[in-house]
Each structure stands twice: as C-alpha cells, then as structure tokens.
C-alpha cells in the first residue's frame, strides 16, 4: 500500500498585525486555520481555492519556509514542526518548491547553469565535475539545451524559465515538491508543455507533489486527490473523480459550477455566489463559508462544522451532514 510521506495536523499560521504605541499585536490574519491533510508517496494532492484562501501559505508552512503558529507537520513519521532552521537543513534536500512567477523567482545576475547547480552547492553534493555533469543532464531532462547554461534568465521565455525552475527544484532528487501555481503565468499553448513535463518527471522520479492551483481543469488533469480551501480552512477533501463528480460542500459545488467550459453546447447549471470572500482578519463565526452559503442555517453561525467522512477518503466539513 501507499506509504505516507507527509501528514499535516491542525496546522495553523496566523500573521500578527502590530499596532498601537507599543507595537502590540492588535489582530491576526488567520491565513491557515487548523488545516489537516496527508500526502502519500508518489501522489499529487492539489490544493484549490480562491485568492486569499491560504493555499500558498499552507504550502510554505508545510515546508517550514514559514514557522507554523501551531500544529504538527509529520514528515516520514517524524514531527518537523518544532525543528530549528539548522536541524531542518539536512531535510531540505528532500523537499523543494517551485514558484508561480517565472520572472521574479530566478536571480537575474546568475547564469542559468549556476541557478540550477546552486542546490548541489548548498548541500555539498558531488565533486565540481559531477555537479557540472548533473546540470547538463538536468537541463536536457527538462527540455533545455545544455549549451545555454551560460545564458542569463532574461534570455529565456516564460515557459523556458519555468523549466529552469523545475530543473533547480529536482536536481537534488527531492521526494516532495510543492508546485505553487507553476503554470498560471504561462501562455495557453505553453501550459500544456509544462504540465506534461511535470507529469513525466513525477512518473520517472517517483516524485510527490503538492500542487497549488486555481485552474480546476488543470487540477482535474493532474491530481490524485484534491483538497478545497476556503478562508484558511479545508472544507472538503476527496479523490479526484469523486470530488469532481460528487462534490458535497456547498462551496465546492459553487466553485466547480463557476468554471467556464470550453464547449458552447454545454450549458451548465451555475451557482452564482453572492458577495465576496470575507476578511481573514475577522472571519465569520462558526462555518467560515456561512455568509455566502445558500443553505446557511442557525447552527452554522454558532458552531464550526467538524470534518466527517462521507465516503472512503472523502471528507467534508459542513453542518448539512449532521442535520437531522
């Protein structure tokens, strides 16, 4: 059976807002608020949700690029949430991240060969010659010509830069890769190239992905399982087909129904949500979604819904489940 690579339990990341004369904490942005999920070895878990739902913060906190406010991150059976940066360092080579912005995430003053080699230098892996060789191989793997290694990032297109980002992330053979909107900034015809590359590499290198995205068509294509976030909470988790075919949570239903479909003959029933996402500084009491939920009941205001398993591997946090 699948082995569990990472498990996150009640992970919380609040950003304090300082104010007043003594710069005390006057409020907190509850970016991630008691989120729990796991990822098995070799699978892709997608984290979907709208901007401000906390998907990126969840990904970064899981990698301890941000220190969690509370909660546990269990990586291969070991809780890493309390480790110091020094203690984290040997683990870092197993977990890498790739960013959305192919322009901002590469150092413009470094030749791409050096950018891709840097993780090897940082972790002192191999001899100088071996590293050089690894860079050439890696560039070929991601579809870049190795003779371009002395070129600078500005000489590459957006799609090629994302290939550089992939190469840098996987050159030290990580187990876990957080893909933070890796294709959102790319043109449509280039997106599919990068999706294919990521999938091919996953199969070849047995990589585990946490895929953060808002494009649900891409999520459907890429993921084994999907977790839906709303305002700092996971509201529903399920296997890919189960989630897309039988969404239960009213937010998931609305989100899926809002996706435009590239087929003029498909006329879908659309659930148009009213209003906007509330502020994470002062989220609604009880269920965070209740202010926009078409089925909101009195209990939704008073009590936070618990996660309940409705089918194997399909969990939902909604009071509609417990309504008698």
């Amino acid at each position, binding site marked *: 059976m699948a082995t569990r690579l990472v498990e996150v339990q009640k992970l919380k990341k609040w950003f304090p807002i300082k104010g007043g004369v003594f710069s005390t904490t006057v409020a907190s942005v509850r970016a991630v608020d008691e989120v729990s999920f796991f990822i098995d070895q070799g699978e892709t878990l997608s984290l979907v949700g*709208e*901007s401000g739902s906390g998907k990126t913060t969840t990904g970064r906190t899981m990698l301890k690029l941000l220190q969690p406010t509370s909660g546990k991150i269990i990586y291969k059976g070991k809780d890493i949430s309390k480790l110091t940066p020094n203690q984290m360092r040997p683990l870092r080579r197993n977990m890498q991240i790739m960013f959305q912005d192919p322009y901002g995430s590469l150092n413009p003053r470094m030749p791409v060969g050096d950018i891709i080699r840097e993780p090897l230098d940082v972790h002192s892996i191999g001899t100088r010659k071996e590293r050089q060789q690894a860079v050439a191989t890696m560039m070929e793997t991601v579809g870049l010509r190795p003779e371009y290694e002395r070129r600078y990032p500005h000489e590459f*297109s957006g*799609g*090629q830069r994302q290939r550089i980002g992939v190469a840098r992330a996987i050159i030290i053979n990580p187990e876990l890769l957080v893909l933070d909107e890796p294709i959102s900034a790319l*043109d*449509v*015809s*280039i*997106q*599919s*190239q990068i*999706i*294919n590359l990521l*999938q*091919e590499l996953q199969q070849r290198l047995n990589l585990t992905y946490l895929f953060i995205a*808002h494009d*649900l*068509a*891409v999520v*459907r*294509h*890429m*993921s084994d399982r999907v977790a839906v976030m709303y305002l700092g909470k996971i509201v529903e988790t399920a296997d*890919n*087909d189960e989630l*897309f075919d039988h969404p239960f949570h009213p937010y998931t239903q*609305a*989100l899926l*129904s*809002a*996706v*435009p*479909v*590239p*087929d*003029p*003959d*498909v006329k879908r029933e*659309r659930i*148009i*949500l009213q209003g*906007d*996402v509330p502020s994470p500084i002062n989220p609604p009491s009880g269920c965070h979604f209740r202010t926009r939920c078409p089925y909101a009941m009195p209990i939704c205001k008073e009590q936070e819904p618990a996660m309940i398993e409705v089918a194997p591997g399909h969990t939902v946090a909604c009071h509609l489940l417990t309504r008698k």
Partner: protein
Amino acid sequence: MDNREVLVDIKNLRTFFYTEDGVVPAVDGIDLTIHQGEVVGLVGESGCGKSVTALSIMRLIPNPPGKIIGGQIFFHGEDLLKKNEEEIRLIRGDKISMIFQEPMTSLNPVYTIGDQISEAITLHQKIHATEAKKRTIEMLHLVGIPEPEQRFSQYPHEMSGGMRQRVMIAMALSSNPELLISDEATTALDVTIQAQILDLMRGLQKKLGMAILIITHNLAVVAEMADTINIAYAGKIVESASAREVFKSPRHPYTYGLLKSIPKFTEKRTNEPLPAIEGMVPSPYHMPKGCRFNPRCPFATEKCREEEPEILELTPGHLVRCFHPIEP
C-alpha cells in the same frame, strides 16, 4: 446574425511599434466584423495583437512608438482612422467604451467612484451634476452593487476586485455604448467572481442590446459568451467562425492544437500526456517567413515556409488562413 446591421468592420488593420530594437508588427492585417448586438470573441496568446487591435479601435495607440500604418476601421460605415482627435473623442467612451483587466489601475485612487462615474457621464451628456449623480446611482444599481448610495462616496481601495470591475462596467455602460470592448476583464478575478461578472455582462447585454468584443486568452470564457470567435496568432486572424463551428470543427492547425492541448474540466483523469503544441510563439522581431505558425505546425510543407496564406472562406461564415486546413 447576418441580417443585423454591421456595426464595426475592420479591414486589413496594421499597427506597428517602432522600438529601439526594431519594428514590432503587433497587428499585421487583422480583419474583424462586429454586428449590432453581437458578442464577438477575439482569442489569442500574449503578443498575438488582440489588445493592440482594441486600442486601435479606440485610437489609443501611444504614438510614438506605435502607429496605425494601414487599414480601415469602419464604425457605422465611417472610417475611425480618418477622424481627427476632436471627432474621435465624441465616440470614444460614448458610443464605444472599454473595460480593462486591472480595475485598480484603471480607476483613479484619489477620487470616489461616484465622482469618477459622474465625470464620465457629464463628459458626454449635457446634464446637471445632480442629474449625473442620480444616473450614477442607477448605474451602480444596474451592475449589482449593493447600497449604491453609500458606495457612491467610497474610494476604489475600499472595494474588492470584483466590485471594482463592476464599477468599471458601470462607468463603461453609463453612456449607453453601442460597443463594449472587454480586454481580459475577468482574467484577474477568482473563478466564482469571474462567474458573477460574466453573468452580469451577459444579462446587461440582453437588456441593453449593445455589441461586445471580448478579448481574452481563455477559450472557455468565449465559449460561454461569444456568438462569433476570431482566433489571432502573431498579429493575424487565423480562423473566424461561429462559436460552435470553432469548437466543433476547428479548421486551422493552431486552433485545433490549442483546443486539443487544454485539459478538460469535464473529463475524467487519464494518465495520458496532453497533446501540446510544440515550440513557442515567434519573437515579434523575427517573424517566420511564410505562414507564421509554420515552425510549430505538424502539417507544414515547403509552401507554408515560403508563402503566406490568405484568409479564405471555406464554408459560409467560416474563414481560415491556411494552405492545408484540417478536414472537418
């Protein structure tokens, strides 16, 4: 569709940018027809010339470096490119309005939204300030902004992205335009908000009857909104047909490849790779000879590398710029 009167007819539009690094033929022979009350999609990737086309219609090309070097843009039969600045100002923002991708940068941060919409109204209509305020509140109500009287005196930063886009739409529609140009207006929005705005635009189009030119890279958005779709590639229209035709029987290899390559939200997961289009969009400084899509085209022949294809009507209303169109 064809019995409706032609509102906009663009013929062989060419807009070039003269930069230090060379000449960029951003729009190089675009033809486009918009009938009254029709929703037309203009789809393409970055650099295909879709936004420059819109700015050319509005006569908002920054000069220098940009210049409209050829073609005609007929609006009600009159060539907009022959009009002087004075005349164009009477049309722009009045009979033709435009909404942009980034509502925050399109709104002035130091004026209330009410003042900004009122200004747009009084600019084109000779009415009193109190009348303009009344009309502004009507418009805010029309685009679904709750409590329009209170919102009138709010600043753009006090509103969310979706609300700001509604304000932009209110402003654009305040003059009762005959053509609304929407340049990636929902791209920066979250999908549930995008659904709200598209729903709003569709509803207003039915109610007010204006024509809409939707410019986007998102095929799904035009599939839902447009009657007619034009696909642009590297400064030229490569295919133009009814929305249904484009999606059901694309004839240009680029359209065909693009439709094949996007993941389908409605289909179960396979583990197959997506049939991607190889290569990338050509650099505007070095456009390939012959058909501009030939370096990426799986069907390219010697002829495609040498000669440039004309756009031809293959079946009634279905135009394709290709020597080897895909058989339906």
